[in-house]
């Protein structure tokens, strides 16, 4: 049965995040042939972002441009989102499971008295139901969930549902909507950019993670160089964070982030069960560790037994050579 689905896209630094295109693809699956209406919010021009959403599969796009929407706030974005939902009266809503998605969607679901299936990694239609698969216990297990009453509302984890092919021949209506945004009770004073090279850990295709074996803050430098060479992001185990070698925002594991990149390179990480929970669903895992008995080798596709300070710079060199020759 075809359904109309609203997708909330996310613009960061003027660009749509890749997960927004993945959300459109997810919405296509949920819609079973129904209309996909994407919405984007911001303070600047949203025309380009709207056009991209159409190229990636949205049938129509609603933009809400307002100076209060410059930076994400739950109250500002919720007012814009609810105005769109009221206009469109959709049967489903999809958004990326990002910082903004995690913050906004529960508020919307609560307001709409609906369910919300968050952090979805795959979607199928079976037995007349849209079935959502999502990790639980940080990926130690998975569950399949359905909506039994009301809106089909879901957030999708970055890097799991492939976006549709970009098609510039696609056309669709782009409508600018005016929304009056008021009564904001939280005021953002400042945003300190700490993330490296603009590659976000949860969306990165390649993650280079360091553990206690990295030994110091400076020890992360060769990992960052390898990450830069591969266009990836640096992550860490709890051990490295607890030892103050890096910020907690880099922590991967049962407490910390759960990542599912195409390539995960674990450097000097022993592989405690809590860490494995956060990364073992990565597509390809490489372990570099001095200790041949380290548990990380049990989940690694490829392992090198050796000193990361010897192996990692050599790996970076080889990758650079490859990129030059390519």
């Amino acid at each position, binding site marked *: 049965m075809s359904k109309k689905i609203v997708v909330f896209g996310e613009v960061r630094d003027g660009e749509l995040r890749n997960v927004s295109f993945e959300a459109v693809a997810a919405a296509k699956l949920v819609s079973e042939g129904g209309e996909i209406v994407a919405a984007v919010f911001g303070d600047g021009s949203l025309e380009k972002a709207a056009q991209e959403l159409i190229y990636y599969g949205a049938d129509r796009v609603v933009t809400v441009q307002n100076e209060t929407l410059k930076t994400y706030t*739950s109250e500002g974005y919720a007012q814009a989102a609810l105005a769109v939902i009221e206009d469109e009266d959709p049967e489903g809503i999809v958004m990326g499971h990002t910082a903004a998605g*995690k*913050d906004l*969607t*529960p*508020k919307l*679901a*609560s*307001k709409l*008295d609906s*369910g*919300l299936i968050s*952090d979805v990694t795959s979607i199928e239609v079976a037995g007349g139901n849209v079935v959502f698969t999502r990790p*639980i*216990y*940080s990926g130690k*297990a*998975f*569950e*399949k*969930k359905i*909506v039994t009453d009301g809106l089909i509302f879901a957030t999708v984890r970055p890097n799991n549902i492939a976006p549709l092919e970009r098609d510039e021949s696609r056309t669709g209506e782009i409508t600018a909507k005016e929304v009056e945004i008021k009564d904001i*009770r*939280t*005021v*953002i*004073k*400042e*945003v*300190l950019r*700490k*993330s490296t090279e603009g590659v*976000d*850990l949860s969306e990165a295709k*390649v993650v280079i993670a360091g553990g206690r074996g990295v030994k110091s803050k400076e020890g992360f430098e060769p990992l960052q160089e390898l990450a830069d060479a591969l266009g990836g992001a640096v992550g860490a185990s709890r051990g490295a*964070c607890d030892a103050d070698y890096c*910020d*907690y925002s*880099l*922590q991967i594991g049962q*407490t910390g982030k759960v990542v599912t990149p195409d*390539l995960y390179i674990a450097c000097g990480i022993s592989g405690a*069960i*809590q860490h494995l*929970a956060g990364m073992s669903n990565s*597509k390809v*895992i490489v372990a570099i560790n001095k200790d*041949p008995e380290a548990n990380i*080798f*049990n*989940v*690694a*596709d*490829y*392992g*090198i*037994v050796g000193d990361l300070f010897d192996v990692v710079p050599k*790996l970076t060199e*080889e*990758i650079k050579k490859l990129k030059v020759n390519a």
Partner: protein
Amino acid sequence: MNIYVLMKRTFDTEEKIVISNGRIEEEGAEFIINPYDEYAIEEAIQLRDEHGGEVTVVTIGSEDAEKQLRTALAMGADKAVLINTEDDVEESDQFTTVKILEAFFDDKEYDLILAGNVAIDQASGQIGPRLAEKLNIPYVTTITNLKIDGDTAHIERDVEGDVEKLDASLPLLVTCQQGLNEPRYPSLPGIMKAKKKPLEELELDDLDLDEDDVEPKTKTIEVFLPPAKEAGKVLEGEIDDQVKELVSLLRNESKVI
């Protein structure tokens, strides 16, 4: 300050997950306070010590959760509330949980409600924002620093690695992220005192709710384990050759670079 903390009892992070009869086997598993909720409890205690007032820790579950509530009391919380749904609620989701919490908070006065930013079992991260919406108070998720100054909270939050500094007005709900504080271990005197601290038990009836009011909107139809990851190939030879081989494997065999 009147401070409430939302707490969940979860599997210990060390536990392996076993599925029997289509459900996650809880028999024999160790349970703990959800690690993110520990940050919330610690922060609540510190704020109370600084500003005065009372910390009440609330959980929904069965009698088994009394143990985690006592631990929270031993850390320094003043009161605990168990909303026991064992007999009334068979299936639940985040809608259910928040419906119950909304009813609980209906006649309460609160300046601050703290919760973990996510529970490590179901990991929905929905409860805090959903409850704030129902109580019509602002919320800030994934906080890493909190200072209260009169009716204003000065907050730092983690946004995918960036730090956002913001101000919010009380009453407020916040969800706690790693890095906020170092949760204390209960002290022996703390454990002794906790035995005498009030632990109130409520059921749906006490909140003027019945089973129909808390009927979930979603349902889990299957639980399964991911395919076991097999140990792969440990390379051999000189490190330089291993590195070359690895790059070749990543490029040609697994095609990820």
